[in-house]
């Protein structure tokens, strides 16, 4: 028995190790590229974050251990930026989740023109972020913007309003542009989730006398938990690290009204050329995003 087994295992083991070696050889170039373009920058940026490196005085870059992290975390402006980032993310992600769910439910029904509507709804997703930002910049413009034009024509306002220049509205308006861009992808992900819910469940519920609202809360929503988890994690990460809209629409202004963490990283790194502080701030943001994603996955995984 053992002899037979060894006769069988011998060639198999040899083949497996041959296959593994071949796979390794073929994967090695890709692994090298990934190490060079992903792993190395990540490790190197951590290394930089331990130095007081300012590009305008590269000859004076002392090793400061975690002083950059302490400096960032003890800066009240950083925490104000964190508050704005959280506010922006909550506004954006909640709105995306609700609107995308409604869109997915709509597209899950059969009606004339559904395919055309599906294609049209994808347009915002296909537009590059900077183009999207420029479009919203012209819509929000207080002198010639379409938003003022429409509201004025409809008699909702007597005078043109200041939109992005009003610090009380700025974050919400940027979040609106973010939602417009992100809803299509979220809707598609939820639609895929809807398609996986067996039709038998709805049929059985109908037989049992469940109305539409009961079917939604007891079949649809529980069936979408997996898709919702994906949407929430992805959109939260997108919102937390979002930069493009802030750069094009307001450049952090007016005042400091749209100074989110991603904006502050840009200012420290590319305007002030303080690479040490910028790298430390980036690591704090990355770790916070990672921790948040982990918590969301864990919370949702327990319920799925």
């Amino acid at each position, binding site marked *: 028995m053992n002899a037979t087994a060894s006769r069988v295992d011998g060639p198999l083991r040899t083949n497996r190790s041959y296959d593994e070696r071949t796979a390794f050889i073929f994967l090695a170039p890709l692994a090298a590229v990934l190490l060079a373009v992903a792993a190395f920058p990540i490790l190197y940026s951590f290394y930089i974050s331990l130095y007081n490196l300012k590009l305008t005085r590269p000859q004076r870059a002392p090793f400061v251990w975690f002083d950059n992290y302490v400096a960032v975390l003890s800066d009240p402006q950083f925490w104000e930026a964190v508050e704005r980032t959280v506010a922006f993310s909550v506004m954006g992600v909640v709105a995306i989740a609700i609107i995308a769910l409604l869109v997915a439910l709509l597209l899950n029904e059969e009606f004339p023109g559904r395919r055309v509507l599906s294609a049209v709804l994808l347009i915002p997703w296909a537009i590059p972020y900077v183009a999207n930002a420029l479009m919203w910049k012209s819509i929000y413009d207080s002198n010639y913007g379409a938003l003022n034009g429409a509201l004025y024509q409809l008699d909702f306002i007597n005078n043109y309003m200041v939109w992005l*220049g009003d610090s009380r509205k700025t974050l919400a308006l940027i979040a609106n542009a973010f939602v417009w861009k992100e809803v299509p992808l979220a809707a598609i992900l939820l639609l895929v989730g809807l398609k996986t819910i067996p039709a038998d469940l709805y049929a059985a519920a109908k037989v049992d006398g469940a109305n539409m609202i009961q079917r939604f809360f007891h079949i649809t929503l529980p069936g979408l938990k997996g898709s919702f988890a994906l949407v929430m994690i992805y959109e939260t990460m997108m919102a937390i690290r979002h930069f493009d809209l802030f750069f094009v629409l307001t450049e*952090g202004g007016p005042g400091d009204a749209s*100074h989110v963490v991603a904006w502050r990283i840009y200012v420290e790194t*590319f305007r002030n050329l303080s690479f040490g502080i910028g790298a430390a701030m980036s690591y704090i943001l990355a770790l916070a995003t990672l921790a948040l994603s982990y918590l969301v996955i864990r919370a949702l995984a327990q319920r799925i």
Partner: protein
Amino acid sequence: MTTSSPSLSRRTFLMTSAAGLAGATALSQSTRALAAEPIHYATWSAAVDHVKSHIAAFEAKTGIKVEYSNTPWAQFRETMVTKFVGNAPIDALWVSDSWLPEWADAGWLAPIDQYETLTAYNADVDEFCLQSMTYKGKLYGLTYYTDYMGFIYNAEILKKAGISTPPASWQEVTDQAKIIKDKGLSRYPMLVPMAQETWLIEFISAMVFSNGGRFTDDNDNAIMHDPSIGAVTTLRWLVDAVHKHKILSPSCVETGELAGMKSFSSGQHAFGLMPKYRLRTLNDPQQSQIAGHATLALMPKGDKGSHATVGWVRFYGMTPRAQANSTRLADTLKLIEWFGGKADGEYKFQKLMFKELGGGFGVKSLFQDPEMHTAYADYGDIDLIDKQRSLTRKKDVVTPWFGEWNDVNGSAWQQAILARVTPERALTASAAKWSALKKRA
């Protein structure tokens, strides 16, 4: 019959080949040595075709090769700093006065004081330009382009309002703007673009200087928050203009220089702060609805002020790399003179830039040039333009920490205009940032 063919032994073949190879290598090396290394010339992406044609003329005349590269203005500082740190070859380049202390302190720019071919032009250069190109007592370049912040009014709106002369003081600006607003000729008669961009410091500096204020004293100490000699009067005027008199739109904090110019050219405003060179566009019927009505006035003065304004300079600088080799140094000096000084006995490039693009120049004698007189007369009163030029001052905040402070200062001014903090508190915050950065430097 036998024929004897020349025999070539293996040894002979190898020796001949080796000798040939060595000869070819030596020849190629000597040829490379003869063809001198080109001058590396870096600019931002402005007037690219004009620069290229002027380089071509330079190369044809001198035989010196120029390796020209350009980068968009928005990324120029960061790109150049990265190149400097990476020891990329750069010999001559365009520099903004705002970056001079930072780059000079880092050792990326070389002074030009010792080169008489360049300093010979100093006598013909505007004083504020020379001051803007000087750091720690050393001169760092020849002017490429310079201009100042102008006070421009729409003569047609003033005429309709029955106002015969433009305002000479900031109080008169308020009074006349209120008349224009009351008559329904403009909702917001005053235009001051206050968006957070590189222009912001120039807009506010012009107003601060004309109000007799300063941001810093002669020792680079912050005084912008001092109510008597600082910038408080100016910021208070702006806040009142938005909230009390409503002659300046609260959206000024989202209006940049270009958007402001477009807004003014559409006839929405009676008065505006704009770079003087915008007069050309504003009076061009192809580009402006108020062509023929945009007129320069002297910068209005405050109670304790004058008609002073602020100017800025972009100049031709040289790197220490260019000085490291005598041939390269001589070639670089020739190139800088060709652009920033005279080419073939005249200020060819400055004239080209002004006539083709309206770019301002810092050469005093060109104001006497009949050709330039004619060109200026198309859209402005050259005597007034010249008078305002003589009242132009350099920015008093250009230090190695200027960039970092500028972001905080711009934000502080915007917050005051949005009435989130008082002008005094905003400027105190700005001064505190300045002092902290100065101490750290």
